[in-house]
C-alpha cells in the first residue's frame, strides 16, 4: 500500500472540502434563492465537470495556471515557484472538478426549506445572514454533509485532472489513484491491489453514510 500517496490524497481532499464549504455555501444559496432569469447559465457552468472529460478540464486548467499564463506568472512572482505541477495547482483544479458535487446537494437542501420559515425569520427581525445561519443551515444539515462527503470522495478518486495538472511527483502530486496506475505499470500488482482495496472500502463507507443520512431524512419527514 502506498501510504504516502494515500495521505497526500486525504490532505488534498480535506483542503478541497474546506474550500468548497467556503465557496459552495454562498454559491448554493444564490442558486437556490436567486430569481435572476439567466441563473440557469451559471448552473450549467457549475455542473460542467459532471459531463466534461476530466482530461479536458485538466487541460484548460493547466493552460490557465501554466508558467506562461498571467495567473501562473503572477503566482511565480509572488511565491517563487510555479503553480502547475504543485499541490496548490492541484487544489485549484480539484475545487473546480468537485464543485457540482458540493453545490448541487447544498442548493437542493436549501430550496427544500419551507419559505414560510424564512419569512417568519425576517418578520422577527433577523437579517438574511442570521436567517441563513439559524434556519437554512440547520434545516439543510443532511444536504450539507452529503455535499461534503461526496466532494471528499470525488477528490480522493480523481485521476485525469491530477495527471494533467499535477503530474506524478511523489509526496507533492502523486495521489492515490495515480499511485495505483504507477504500480500497475511497474507490474507491482500486490501493492496496487492493497491500495485499491482501501479505496473500495472507503467508497462503500461513504455511500453508506450518504444513503443513511437521506434515509433518516425521509423517516423524519413522514408525519
Amino acid at each position, binding site marked *: 500500500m502506498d501510504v504516502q500517496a494515500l495521505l497526500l490524497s486525504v490532505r488534498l481532499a480535506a483542503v478541497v472540502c474546506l474550500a468548497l464549504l467556503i465557496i459552495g455555501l454562498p454559491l448554493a444559496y444564490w442558486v437556490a434563492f436567486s430569481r435572476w432569469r439567466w441563473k440557469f447559465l451559471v448552473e450549467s457552468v457549475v455542473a460542467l465537470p459532471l459531463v466534461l472529460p476530466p482530461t479536458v478540464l485538466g487541460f484548460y486548467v493547466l493552460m490557465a495556471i501554466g508558467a506562461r499564463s498571467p495567473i501562473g506568472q503572477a503566482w511565480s512572482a509572488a511565491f517563487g515557484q510555479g503553480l502547475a505541477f504543485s499541490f496548490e495547482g492541484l487544489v485549484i483544479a480539484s475545487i473546480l472538478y468537485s464543485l457540482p458535487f458540493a453545490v448541487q446537494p447544498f442548493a437542493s437542501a436549501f430550496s427544500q426549506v*419551507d419559505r*414560510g*420559515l424564512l*419569512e*417568519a*425569520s*425576517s*418578520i*422577527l*427581525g*433577523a*437579517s438574511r445572514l*442570521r436567517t441563513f445561519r*439559524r*434556519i437554512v443551515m*440547520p*434545516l439543510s444539515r443532511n444536504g450539507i454533509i452529503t455535499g461534503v462527503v461526496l466532494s471528499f470522495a470525488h477528490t480522493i478518486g480523481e485521476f485525469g485532472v491530477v495527471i494533467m495538472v499535477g503530474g506524478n511527483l511523489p509526496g507533492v502530486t502523486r495521489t492515490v489513484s495515480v499511485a495505483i496506475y504507477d504500480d500497475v505499470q511497474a507490474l507491482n500488482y500486490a501493492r496496487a491491489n492493497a491500495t485499491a482495496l482501501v479505496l473500495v472500502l472507503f467508497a462503500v463507507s461513504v455511500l453508506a453514510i450518504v444513503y443513511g443520512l437521506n434515509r433518516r431524512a425521509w423517516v423524519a419527514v413522514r408525519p
Partner: protein
Amino acid sequence: MILSATVNVRLSNEFTLDVRFEAPPGVTILFGESGSGKTTILRAISGLARPDRGRVAVGDTVLFDADAGIDVPVEGRNIAYVAQHLALFPHLTVVDNIEYGLTQLGRAERDRRVTAILESFRIAPLRHRKPAQLSGGEKQRVALARALVTDPRALLLDEPLSALDHATQTRIMDDLRAWNRERRRPVLYVTHSHREVFALGERVVVLENGRVQMQGTPHEVLDSPAHHRLATVAGFENVFDGTVITSRADLGTTMCRIDGVEVEVPYSGSVEGAPIKVAVRAGDILLATQEPCGLSARNLLSGCVQSLRREAGSVVARVSAGPGFDVRLTPGACESLGVERGRDVWLVIKTYSWRVVA
C-alpha cells in the same frame, strides 16, 4: 397608535386589490370570502409583498410610501405576523423559538420577557419541547407568544385560530386581549368565518373583490348589510326586491310589496313607489301548520312547502308564499309538525326581523 393602510396592488389581469382603511388599537377584523385579498393586505403591511402604490403607517412611523420612495425592509418593521401555518421553527425548542426575535436585548431582559410571556400564555411547562411535540392549540399559543414577545408595533393574524375548536379559540383570544389591555396595539385579524367576527372583533372591515365594502362595529356591518351579496355572506338567506307602498315615520314602519304580497318592515325613509331591497334570516321566520291568531307579529303569509333540504344539523324548507322563502327549522320541529313537501303552511315574520338593505 393607529395602523393606517392604503394598498394598491395588481395581482393579475382581472384582479386589482385597492383598499384604504384604519385599524385603531384593539382587534379589527378583516372579513371577506377567500380570494378577496385579505392575506395580500397582511403581506403588504408586514413588508413581505410590495404594493404597486400606497402607504402603510403605524402612528407617526411610515413603513411604506410609494410616492416618497419609503420601503422599510421586513426585518426593520417590527410588525408581528402570525401566518395560518404558524411557521414555528421545527429544529428549535419552544424557548428558542420565542427568543428568536430578541437578539438585540441583553441576557437578563431577554429572560425576563420570555418568562413573562411563557406565563401569560400558559406554555411554561412546554419550554423545552420541539414544535412536533405540541398540540394544535399549544402551537398557536407558542406562535402568538413568539410574535408578541418582540413588543411589536402592530399584530397581524391570518386565520391563526380557524383550525381550533371554539372553546380553545375563545381562550386564546382572551389571552391575547389580556396582553393587549395595557399596550393598546392595533391587531388585524383576518377571517372568513362570520361567527369569529362577532366573537372576536371590536371593528370589522369587510372586503369584497379587492375593495373595502364596509367598515364599522360587527353589528353595524353585519346587521344592516348594504349589499345583496354581502347580505347572503352575513347569513341573510332571503333577500327581496320590492316597491314601497307607504312609509310611516310616526309608526317607525314601511309597508312594501314584494312579488304580490305586502310586508311590513322597519321605517326606511323611502317615498311611495320607490324601489326597496329587504332581507330576513331563514332562522328568524316562524312556520305554522295551522293559521295562527292573536300574534304581535305583523307579517302573516300563507304558502306551500316546495322542498326540504338538510343543512349542517338543521332543515331548510323552501316555502312559496308569493316570493320564495328559505325557512330554517330544527329536525325535531320539522318532524313533530309533519312538515313535508306540498303541505300548506303559514309564515310569521316580525317587523323587526326584516332588514332594509337598500
